[in-house]
């Protein structure tokens, strides 16, 4: 059963304890200056955004079928059956196609380092594997971030909207976006106001490229047959032309010789 996070913005009080717990979990520095930063970065994998009295978390969505994992040429990024989209640093060669491919523009790069890594929230894979909650869900004092089985969280989110329709935008963001994500959002205002992309397709992103990529064996086999065939025909034509030329030449030669002989006889 795949795990997920449900973030209910209406229950969030903006205490930012999730930010601090995340930093600690990932061995990153956290202080007032970092807390004030309103952007995900290579040293801040989750951020609580504030707009008036509204809050919104941003973090890696840990997609069900992630664009980054399909884009990565060396499979450094992978979706685990448990839910987290993990990053294996020792494979990464730094092409940054994951950053381009991510529909949520989540992956960050250590631009300042000579040998940089890609950085992002990986949904605490070690904790999840050990049967624990993610650090952010565990610390959350109000239950705004809740960890659990994805199916159960979806059911719960639907129930919350049903019970309090006035409180929510009637949508679970992440339910179907890009084929579904392991982070689900509930909010009283459209999440787009906090920079989440709107109008995402229900189709998983990897399908867009794999649709074409899966034709590679066909191109190879058909291309080989076609090109080989064309060569066989054109080459035969060249050979025939050459043979005809030879024949012509030898005929002309023998004609000339017989003529020569003829003239000699005459003499």
């Amino acid at each position: 059963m795949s795990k997920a996070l449900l973030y209910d913005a209406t229950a969030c009080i903006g205490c930012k304890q999730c930010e601090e717990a995340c930093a600690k979990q990932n061995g990153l520095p956290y202080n007032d200056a970092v807390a004030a930063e309103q952007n995900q970065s290579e040293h801040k994998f989750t951020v609580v955004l504030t707009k008036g009295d509204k809050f919104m978390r941003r973090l890696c969505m840990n997609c069900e079928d992630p664009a980054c994992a399909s884009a990565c040429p060396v499979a450094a990024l992978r979706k685990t059956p448990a839910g987290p989209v993990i990053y294996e640093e020792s494979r990464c060669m730094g092409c940054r196609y994951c950053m381009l491919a991510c529909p949520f523009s989540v992956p960050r790069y250590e631009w300042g380092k000579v040998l940089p890594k890609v950085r992002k929230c990986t949904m605490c894979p070690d904790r999840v594997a050990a049967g624990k909650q993610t650090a952010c869900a565990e610390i959350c004092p109000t239950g705004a971030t809740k960890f659990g089985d994805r199916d159960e969280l979806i059911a719960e989110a639907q129930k919350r909207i049903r019970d309090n329709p006035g409180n929510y935008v009637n949508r679970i963001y992440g339910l179907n976006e890009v084929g579904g994500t392991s982070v689900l959002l509930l909010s009283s205002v459209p999440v787009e106001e906090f920079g989440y992309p709107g109008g995402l397709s229900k189709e998983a992103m990897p399908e867009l490229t794999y649709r074409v990529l899966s034709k590679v064996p066909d191109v190879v086999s058909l291309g080989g047959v076609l090109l080989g065939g064309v060569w066989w025909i054109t080459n035969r034509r060249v050979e025939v032309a050459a043979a005809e030329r030879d024949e012509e030449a030898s005929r002309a030669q023998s004609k000339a010789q017989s003529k020569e002989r003829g003239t000699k006889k005459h003499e």
Partner: protein
Amino acid sequence: MSKPKFTFWKFVLAVVLLVGAYSLLLRFFRGLGASTNLTDAFPWGLWVGFKLFSVALAGGGFTLAAVVHIFNLRRYRPVLRPIILTAFLGYSMFIVSLIIDLGRPYRVWHPLVMWNDHSVMFEIAWCVMLYTTVLLLEFIPALFERLQWKRSLAWVHGITIPVVIAGVILSTLHQSSLGSLYLIVPGKLYPLWYSPFEPVFFFLSALCAGMAMTIFESWHSSKAFGKQLELPLLTGLGRVLAVLLAFYLAVRTLDLLHRGVFSLLKLPRTETYLFLLEAALLIVPMVLLFFRRIHENLTALYLCSVLTLLGVVANRMNVAITGMEANSGTYYFPKWTELAITLSLVASAFALFALAVKYLPVFPDAHEIYAQRPEPVAQALTPVLAVPELTDVRS
């Protein structure tokens, strides 16, 4: 060829390479952050654009190899070798710029052993690697001829057809795959360029670039060596280029129509202007090349080929940079170090081409010249851009 001009270009080359070398030091000892204007919001910049168009401009390699060896149009043979050399240098530049652009250059070999067959980048890595090998095999007869290694020459001639077929298939795959890279960013690439047919567009425009490059090089070789394809052959290429361009432009126009994004051109935006520039650079040569006065005139043909090449470069830069800017929310212009490195890569490609032409039988009949003229070693050390000497020998 006057002496001062000669020295001037050498000087320019030296300056470009020096600044480039310094930029390379910055890149490898200070990191990507210090040597580029790339950011989390704009992770791919000039070097990716350069990679895209260096491969497109190398499209002549597989096009002409197919024309000469598969379709057996032997009359185009004289210009095949310089085009193969150009393609080989184009791909070499791709690989070098990739190594510079990678965050961890020493792991460039990882795709060999760490596979992900769902990744377009993985497929490109393999294709480029294999096709560069193919180009080497296609060009190496020049070296074997020069060294008079008759047995190696016979061996490499024996495998020509399978190698060429492999080359055409590999090129078809990755030329289009470079477009497929952008299929996964429907929300990020500006609609004037984002299309589900991007791979087809990339492939077709690479064919155009290949034809244009053949005309382009033939003209230059005629200037430098008094050698060229006969005008009727170039006229033929010009006609083919006109039709290819017309087809490519028709497909793209239909795509814009079907996706209903033509109205975007009414917006006074950078994207609009640069799209129109790209379109003009391709439409003008297409129209001109249909006129007899143009495609039967060597200089006019040459100018049309230049426009086409610039058009393809504009297209690749628009996809890589212009089209990705709006959604990123940032403004990107390459840092001087990025420009310097790119420029010195282009300069080295030209210099290497000149070197190869000087020492190897790249142009037909050229080996006769070499046979008559043994090269002293000292002369071999200062050969860059010394190509014009060949003209002196011939005349």
